[in-house]
């Protein structure tokens, strides 16, 4: 982690350096991926695996569906005042065959999104607390400057 003022709002769920990625795990017996990462007992009912490797999930995927939040969500969401609506995307990761939800980067509205659109994972500040940026993963259209 380069900047001491930057912290993950969910510690250990994603890396904070350049080219950030979600941290998942894969069952060493059956090959199923898990996010949030799993390190105990495999959830595939046909698998008795108890050993996992931690690994970075794909940083890029395609939008499976999308929407936005026009009303301020309740806590634990920490909202800027006044509330600023944001877009949300469900993104399909090809290798993992898994869909992961997340906010879309600030400033990109739903009108710019399409199902199937390629996106990449970036970090943005979810909120600031005690002089620290609390970072979270967000999806960004790959054509975004």
């Amino acid at each position, binding site marked *: 982690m380069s900047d001491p003022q930057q912290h993950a709002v969910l510690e250990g769920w994603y890396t904070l350096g350049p080219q950030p990625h979600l941290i998942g795990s894969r069952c060493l017996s059956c090959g199923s991926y898990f996010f949030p990462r799993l390190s105990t007992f495999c959830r595939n009912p046909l698998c008795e695996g108890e050993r996992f490797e931690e690994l970075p999930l794909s940083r890029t995927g395609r939008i499976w569906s999308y*929407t936005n939040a026009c009303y301020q969500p309740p806590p634990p969401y920490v909202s800027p005042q006044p509330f600023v609506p944001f877009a949300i995307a469900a993104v399909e990761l090809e290798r993992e065959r898994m869909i992961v939800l997340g906010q879309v980067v600030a400033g990109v509205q739903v009108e710019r999104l399409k199902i199937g659109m390629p996106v990449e994972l970036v970090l943005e500040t979810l909120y600031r607390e005690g002089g620290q940026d609390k970072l979270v993963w967000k999806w960004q259209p790959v054509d975004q400057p």
Partner: protein
Amino acid sequence: MSGEVAVLGVGMHPWGKWGRNFIEYGVHAARAALKDAGIEWRDVQFISGAATMRCGYPGYIAGASFAQALGWQGAEVNTSYAACASGAQALAAARAKILAGGCELALVLGADTTPKGFLAPAAGYRPDDPDWVRFLLGITNPTYFALYARRRMDLYGATVEDFTAVKVKNAAHGAANPNARYRKRFTREEVLESALVADPLRLLHVCATSDGGAAVVLSSVEYARRHNRKAPRIAGISTVTPRFASSEVEMPDIATDSAAAAQSHSFRASIAEHAYAEAGLGPEDLSLAEVYDLAASMELDWYEYLGLCRAGAAEELLRSGATRIGGRIPVNPSGGLACFGEAVPAQALAQVCELAWQLRGQAGERQVADAKVAISANQGLFGHGSAVILKR
């Protein structure tokens, strides 16, 4: 699963935002159901409550809370929690008790008092709770409803007009329901002019959260016969869990199962399949359905999950008028969640109340002609869902 039980009586407390203790609604509904069944509370041998997490300890132990409020009389007790399917799980427990010969008369009930606005998780720093995590990220219930709605638009050509037509239809159905919270016949324009909540869904596409209570008295078929009661039968109850890898983006998870090493399965389709299999009936046998229209768009998903039409044909079924009262297969004749708003632990039982009234020909202006077989379906958090089939 073989064996049927009789629905001897049903009762509800009207849905609304009454702000009173949930137990009051439950007891009101229970007394109505007992009266409808023609039995006394002291004759009930098993009480099965649907839990409400919002209402503290009395909510966690709903079965005992209701039993105490009705007056301790020594009945055996059960409490079930399965989010929106809690009522169906409580019903399944009562059915099992009857079929196992453990009792002849059971009372099943659920009631809720809800806060204003979004349903929110318990406080604290709790990253192990997916419900807490998704709210931290700003992902509310309507987020999920809207993701499914947008998907329908992209895959099947659904339009916001279709979602609006579902709401207008259900509002027209519910206008004649004395237990519904919203009895206004909303127009297309009113729906389309309501505030955007989660694109493409507007406020009047998304259901509210309500206070309410519903109760069902079950008996053995033998008891109903002995007392010369013509009661509808429960022919099937489904409380199945998903199968890995579950393909659907499920509330409150922020990621699906990975289908990298396992076949992908549709959870919602499996809910109805199990109920049909238990009942030995299929979608072609249905006279009506009550489905979980958390958002108007989700009613269209249920047409397909219940097998009323093939995948992608729900809009066509809606536009044909088949799902209105008077159509081939009316859906949500009660008005659905559009008119009730969600009172989580009571909702699956409220659906059963409507099925019973319909099969008994006592649904008044919203009566579906000559209703013989009916199904309810719902789905809630954490891989819970249910379907109940009643037949005359």
